[in-house]
């Protein structure tokens, strides 16, 4: 065997063994760089605090305060608006339910519009948690329904059916979540911890009402249009790549206020209230109107009821 010498850029003239070692080290370093590349990329838009944040339910009140303070600072920095993120808690003896009078609804989409504004949705996609279907009278056939209508409403021989999260008692979206980033609160609201969601979209696929939305892009809203009254589990501006959903305006209803979609309804088709209060409006509707739920056969047990007057 000849002791042949190689000429390498930095090491100069070396023997074969050293040359192979140098090659291996170079390759190793290159692979390491490639392997840790995602971490380097993350660091640009993901702070260590955010990365290390615990699940909502594991956060102690003090830790949550820190998280909320950070989120408020981020909102100011990224959206140029001073916001107040609150975290109102479920009250005992309260369970929310919604009813919608299909005889009255005219399909004006004012509810979807109000949702868009209240819940800080992306302006470009005009996103909303409410999808209004224009339905053929004579049955409830979504195959014949249309939610892109732009004709004057109500059109002859049509009825209108707004569909949003049904806040199911047996929510399929919750059971499929692999990381428990979504759950049902004591007052019946199904919520998402946007900081725990990994964006796998299983819940979107599982929901038979198509009530969940995915943030494909970072929501764009001008500072003026941001709704500064926000909730950690509801309408704070969601990050890119996470799921979001209707929470019956959790930040409003837990403070006793009516949801934004109800206040916006010009015909008064919507009835909201505490289903555990026998004197509530919602209970009167359930006891006196012929209510039905969507896709009852699936056993999701919705807390959203529909009814016709006649």
């Amino acid at each position, binding site marked *: 065997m000849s002791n042949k010498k190689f000429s390498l850029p930095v090491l100069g003239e070396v023997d074969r063994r050293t040359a192979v070692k140098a090659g291996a080290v170079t390759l190793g370093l290159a692979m390491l760089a490639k392997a840790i590349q995602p971490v380097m990329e993350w660091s640009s838009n993901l702070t260590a605090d955010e990365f290390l944040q615990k699940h909502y339910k594991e956060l102690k009140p003090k830790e949550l305060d820190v998280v909320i303070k950070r989120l408020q600072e981020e909102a100011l920095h990224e959206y140029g608006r001073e916001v107040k993120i609150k975290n109102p808690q479920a009250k005992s003896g309260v369970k929310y339910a919604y009813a919608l009078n299909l005889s009255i609804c005219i399909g004006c989409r004012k509810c*979807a519009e109000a949702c868009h504004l209240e819940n800080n949705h992306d302006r470009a996609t005009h996103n909303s948690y409410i999808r*209004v279907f224009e339905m053929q009278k004579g049955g409830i056939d979504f195959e014949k329904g*249309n939610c*892109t209508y732009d004709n004057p409403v109500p059109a002859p021989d049509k009825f209108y059916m707004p569909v949003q999260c049904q806040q199911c008692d047996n929510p399929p979206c919750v059971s499929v979540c692999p990381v428990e980033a979504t759950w049902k609160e004591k007052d019946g609201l199904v919520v998402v911890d946007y900081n725990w969601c990994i964006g796998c979209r299983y819940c979107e696929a599982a929901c038979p009402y198509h009530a969940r939305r995915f943030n494909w892009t970072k929501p764009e809203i001008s500072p003026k249009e941001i709704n500064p009254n926000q909730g950690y589990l509801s309408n704070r501006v969601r990050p890119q790549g996470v799921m979001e959903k209707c929470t019956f305006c959790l930040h409003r209803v837990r403070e*006793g206020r009516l949801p934004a979609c109800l206040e916006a309804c010009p015909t008064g088709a919507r009835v909201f209230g505490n289903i555990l209060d026998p004197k509530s409006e919602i209970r*009167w509707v359930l006891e006196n109107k012929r209510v039905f739920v969507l896709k009852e056969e699936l056993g999701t047990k919705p807390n959203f009821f529909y009814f016709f*007057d006649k």
Partner: protein
Amino acid sequence: MPHAPEPVPSFARSRMVKGLSFVLVIALLAVLLLFPKPQSVVVPEKVQTASAVNEERHFETFIRKPAGPPSVKTGLLDPHGQPVSVACNTCHATRSPNAELRVGGNLSTFHQGLKGNHGNLTCVSCHNGNEGYQTLRLADGKSLPFTEVMQLCAQCHGPQFRDYSHGAHGGMTGYWDLTQGPRQRNNCIDCHDPHFPKYPTVRPAQGPHDRFQSSPHDQKGTGHE
């Protein structure tokens, strides 16, 4: 409500009974101080009342009301440039009501622009011609101020009024939980034009443009052809 068991005389010297009678005296004092009429205090009732007070609704539901008798614009402007309006009885005090005239009927002077389509009602079905049209007229002939218009509508539209009274008809804003805040509700004529009560056709607001909104057959270039 704390209950102190009745002391039994045979145990009068035991420490336990001393303690119990002390508690009883304190409880009695508390009852005397808290409630001015102790003879009316029956424990279960009092507990009930206390919880009822907690559940009592603190805030009211305000129903919007029309301002009062309407006034009619004369088309003239006053020296400040403000339109001149006149009260109904300015003209109607000297004119006798026409009981035949239908809502939306032809008039030679005033109210010509008033379109109407409300069943077979005539003007004087609801407007009180006997009082210079300054009030409304119930079906039994009694007059009703304009502010109480809902009572007039309820005469014929019972089911709607029943639903309204139970919060299942008509728009509202404010609080679902009246212990936390008030609620404002519309009245009938906020949404329904009394002369043309059918809700008008409107242009819908823009909907979300998510990709599931359009049917797959409308979409071009999705790569699924």
